[in-house]
């Protein structure tokens, strides 16, 4: 079923919308959740919560990219759950590794108390991503938005594992330089 048709079901408040969404994007959302949580049960719960959130937000929202819209919800839910588990000293290390990598992007001047607003940070990151070549941008997003592992990314694009690592290393450096040039504090 096309996305437009699924969205029409949401707007008609037809519960088939959930069924069709599950059918089309169930594994997609589960994949995002599992990359963050590495736990089947927790991932399933996040995906189910995603359908509920989607049902509550459509309408009035009518996303242009339904998959991205759903994926974003799943990502946020999954990461929130991960933070809760981390606070309880539970959970696996893959997410820790990604955060360690992202920590390399933190500008050196991030020692004061005055932090950049979240919206501004989002804007700057978008601005940065648009300066990147398509290939580099894709690799960065697969790693830090979709939380995919290096091997999966390499397989997706048909490149070597080391190439992925090299590209991400360079991009993190560029992001750090960019944020520093903007004089922001995280």
């Amino acid at each position, binding site marked *: 079923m096309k996305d437009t048709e699924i969205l029409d079901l949401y707007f008609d408040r037809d519960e088939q919308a959930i069924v069709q969404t599950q059918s089309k994007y169930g594994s997609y959302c589960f994949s995002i959740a599992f990359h963050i949580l590495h736990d089947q049960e927790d991932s399933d719960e996040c995906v189910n919560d995603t359908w509920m959130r989607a049902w509550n937000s459509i309408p009035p929202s009518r996303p242009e*990219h339904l998959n*991205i819209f759903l994926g974003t919800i799943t990502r946020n839910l999954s990461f929130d759950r991960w933070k809760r588990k981390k606070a309880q000293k539970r959970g696996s290390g893959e997410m820790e590794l990604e*955060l360690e990598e992202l920590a390399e992007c933190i500008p050196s001047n991030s020692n004061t108390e005055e*932090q950049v607003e979240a919206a501004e940070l*989002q804007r700057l*990151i978008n601005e940065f991503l648009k300066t990147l070549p398509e*290939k580099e941008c*894709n690799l960065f997003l697969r790693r830090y938005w979709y939380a995919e592992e290096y091997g999966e990314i390499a397989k*997706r694009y*048909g490149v070597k594992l080391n190439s992925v690592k090299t590209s991400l290393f360079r991009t993190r450096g560029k992001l750090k330089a960019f944020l520093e040039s903007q004089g922001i504090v995280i």
Partner: protein
Amino acid sequence: MDEKKTDQAIRLFEALEGVDPELLARSEKEKKIIPFRRYVRAAAMFLAVIAVGGLGIYTVRNAGQKAANESAMYSAQDNMAKKSISGNAGASSGKGVSNGNAAGSYAEQSADEAADWANAEAAYAEERATGAMEAEMNGLREEGEAYSDTAASAIDSRNANEADSASKEKQALSWKEYAWSGDFFKNVTGTQGVSEKSDADALLNAFEGKGMEVELDGGNAVKIADPYVAAQLYTLINALQLESCSAETAAQKKGSGESILLSIYAAEDGADEASGAQNEEKSGAGEASGALNTGEIETFLLEGKVLTKNGSEIYLILDEFYDFDILKNTLEEMIGEQ
């Protein structure tokens, strides 16, 4: 990682939530990144298929045309032969327009004389026809030869170009094979790479004792002097057609104190003509050693790194890349080697 860093990293991760959906949608496509070399090979094969196919079609069409012309020629001859036979017979029977008329116009003469005139007429007509056909055949033959010559010269030209390209590609491959093979780095470092970061001494040790001049520049650079390697590297840089950057950017990168400089010296101009000639002989490409002129500055941008050629030096500036495995991988990625 301390808690503050973790919190900051979390903020960054969460900020990615607002990424433009178009960028995310683009990343969803499983676009295989075709290495440059494989792309060139595929493009060359495609063009070759097109060229061969086009030539084949042309040849077949030309052969068909020739066959049709010859067939027309033979049938015309055949017709003329038939006409002459019928003309001889038609003197009496009246078949064929000219022969019939000739026979008719001589109706008042004796039958023998009329027959003779008719035969002569027919023979003349046949001769004329034969002559015309011969001229036509000659014309067609010349035209066909002209076509053959054109096709042959086109084929020769194509073969020459292919041979030239193949030769150049073979040369380039051999430089690549040398420069980026494991042996090159092994000869340079003695290992597959140096893993210690911000440790110039480790790099110094890696290069020393390998028969190459080693020098530190600004405390965090290593220079290697090998004229042959320099010539090859410069040729490879040209072959890769790397994007150039301004001299100011190169100088900025060089003098930042944060970068490591990997310099490869060529033989200095006039300093050692013998080794220069030896380099030329070795590399098989005059442009390699001849292109390095003292005082000339040329800068190349290598995927964010900067290569600066200044006279007899080539600087490869690595942004915090102390691991030569990463350098090797970067360059392999660029030239599309698997």
